[in-house]
């Protein structure tokens, strides 16, 4: 599965970079979201894949049964997802606001500080 995921990650990165290089502000934000997904998946895969073995300690034991999925990347990704959402929400509202004020979402026309 790792090989397949490697290509999924590469594809997501490519899509993200391509979207971020567009002149449209909306597409830039879409690109950012894709970039977040790609990075999360990258961290997840780098922690190796363990099928259907969540890092949870059974009721009557002190340690989880080997093999179990690495909890550290999961903790990192969990944080990243939530922070990513905060950034997205802010970016979307900012985009909406900027569009209302400036009347365009063409980044080439947002070069100067005067609206």
């Amino acid at each position, binding site marked *: 599965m*790792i*090989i*397949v995921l490697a290509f*999924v*990650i*590469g*594809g*997501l*990165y*490519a*899509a*993200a970079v391509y979207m*971020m*290089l567009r002149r*449209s502000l*909306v597409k830039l934000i*879409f690109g950012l*979201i894709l970039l977040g*997904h790609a990075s999360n998946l*990258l961290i997840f*895969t*780098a922690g190796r894949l*363990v099928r*259907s*073995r*969540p*890092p*949870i*300690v*059974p009721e009557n034991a*002190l*340690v*989880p049964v080997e093999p*179990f999925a*690495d*909890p*550290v990347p*999961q903790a990192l990704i*969990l*944080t990243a*997802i*939530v*922070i990513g*959402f*905060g*950034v997205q929400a*802010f970016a*979307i*509202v*900012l*985009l909406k*606001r900027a*569009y*209302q*004020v400036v009347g*365009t*979402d*063409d*980044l080439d026309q947002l*070069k100067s500080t005067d609206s």
Partner: protein
Amino acid sequence: MLTAVVSGFVLALLAPWLYRIARGAAGWLLSLLPAALFVYFAAFIPQIASGRTAAASLPWVPALGVNLSFYLDGLSLAFALLITGIGALIIIYAGGYLAGDAHLGRLYAFLLMFMASMLGLVLADNLITLFIFWELTGVSSYLLIGFDHQRDEARAAALQALLVTGLGGLAMLAGFVMLGIAGGSLDLTTLLGRGDAVKSHTLYPAILVLVLLGAFTKSAQFPFHFWLPGAMEAPAPVSAYLHSATMVKAGIYLLARLAPIMGGAELWQYSVTVAGAVTMLVGAAIALAQTDLKRILAFSTVSALGTLTMLIGIGTTPAIIAAMTLLLAHSFYKGALFLASGSLDHETGTREVNELGGLLRAMPVTGAATIAAALSMAGIPPLLGFISKELLYESLLHAPIIEEVLTVAGVLAGVAMAALAGVVAIKPFFGEKTETPKSAHEAPASMLLGPALLATLGLAAGLLPNALGASLVAAAAGAALGAPIEVKLSLWHGFNFVLLLSAATLAAGSAAYLMRRKIYRLGESMQRVSQWGPSRWYRSTLDGVLSIADMQTRVLQSGYMRFYLLIVIAATLGPAGYIFWSRVRPAMPQAPMDLRFYEWLVAAVILGAAIATVKSTSRLTAVATLGVVGFGIALIYILYGAPDLAKTQFAIETLTVVLFVLVLYRLPRFTKYSEKPARMRDLAVALGVGGMMTTLVLAVTAIPRESRLAGYFAEHSVATAKGRNIVNVILVDFRGLDTLGEITVLSVAAIGVFALLRLRSSQQKSDPPGDAQ
């Protein structure tokens, strides 16, 4: 000794405040410190003359071998006495010269700071310490040249001096580091014993070039001489102090200091001697063509610095003795002349020699001091300048290399000096009295003390050479030679060839003085040539640097978002990618593909949805496919043992889609702004990034996994934190503070969202939004 250096800096801090209280008396009061330091250093003379040295050290960065260590031998003592002695006179003089100036307190502060830096420079035993004080003199010199900061010329001259000497200083630092490698120590006292190791080291030529760059820029050697006349924008006391008596001699000091370590090699001998000789001639020639008193003195200083450099390059015992004698003689007469010319300027309102004449009656003391100093400059007995000139000729005649050329050059420079002495002393004070912008009268006592005392010193040291100076010259020359020597100075050496040369020099000098109008005319026609000289190189270099910076800014700061992104991505793909490719061999995992049908499906769905998002022309489709990507990833989390991630991802994905849909119709439509070539370029970049990330994943997963953290958390999750879901335990317990930070970020984002929405509604009342499509 540490106190001696630091006290100057401390007093510099207090100087402006002291000036506010003491006003006119401040100069006299402040000069007490340099005077006291002079006495302090003078008390060392017997000890140093008998061959002993003094040292003080304070560890600074011991790990790097950098110590704040100071060391007093004959060479540093001679410089320390000049710095403190002339410093005291300069501070008194400045009080008269700039009386009533609102910024006089500041000038005092800069002068004292400079004095302390210069003292630190000549006393430093550690090369790094020396470098730091070297740069401090450069900084204080910048402040002093630009003292009159409202004038454009002063600022430009200050910057020029800082850039030229600062760049030289940086080269010197590199040279010092290499010297430390070659000699195995950064301490001069240790290096003194390792001269042969340094000279035979492969780095020696590089060290030599770099250190000479530092010394030559600081001491205004050709072709770096152009900054010194520019620095004459500074007030007269500053010019006299920094650009004649002390700072410009720092390069000479460095050469003399390093001569026992690096000198003697053929490379050193030729480069230092020839550079000095060329500077001596160029300086003298340009000086002859000048009519501004200060510029005459400035270029004749360049010439004298060249002479000193040349003598140190020759490096024989007579040459070093001549250098040290000239050092003293020059500091006395040139200091006096600079101060006297400042007084002339101050009292008459002009420095143009052709506008000055017959002033001896109006300014008798200044005139007498100028004449005595000029006699010393011309090399007329019984002044110290005569002795130094005799020693100079003597050592040139017996120089180990190109002695004929050097002798001719030395005599030519001597002729120029004699003629220049006539220009600065005879022209302004004798002959017909001329009308000057201000009616001339004698300068105040504070401005007489300096020139008079320095001129008298030149006379007294000439008359009684062995009482005043011989022991100091011997100690200084001994330090520069690396072995103690005996020195007897005398005015009379009997009728010999050297005396004949001296007489010829004077005769030729007088003739040149009388023919000076012809020389000026010659000088004017030379102007066209000098336009192409080093100061033009400086300007074009400066312009070049600025235009490169300009171009680079225009390219990098285009203002287009995607170019910034492209640069960042290209920088990652290029250098980082290169290192990655050249070090890592990605390997396909050897294990057979164990893949289930639904896993294939999920992967295909994610990729397909991502491509659909990119290709979509409708906002709604794009939002939907983006949601599919998110949900697909959540499925992967479920499949591979991360239920918490999946839950969060589902929740967030749903929220994002909802948020998008809420504002969707307020958002602009998808528009294709880019042309096809731009899209192709972006596609290539994007595929490059994608390919690199794929390879990265393959490379990372090919390395055997090692996670000590996973084991640690698994072991302590229940035992220590009493929780069974390890991911949760990490977030709320082990890394609780990180989670607090995360919550903070979310709240800030929430406040931002709220503010943006509120802002809209409040502005809507007064300013309805444009027609949103």
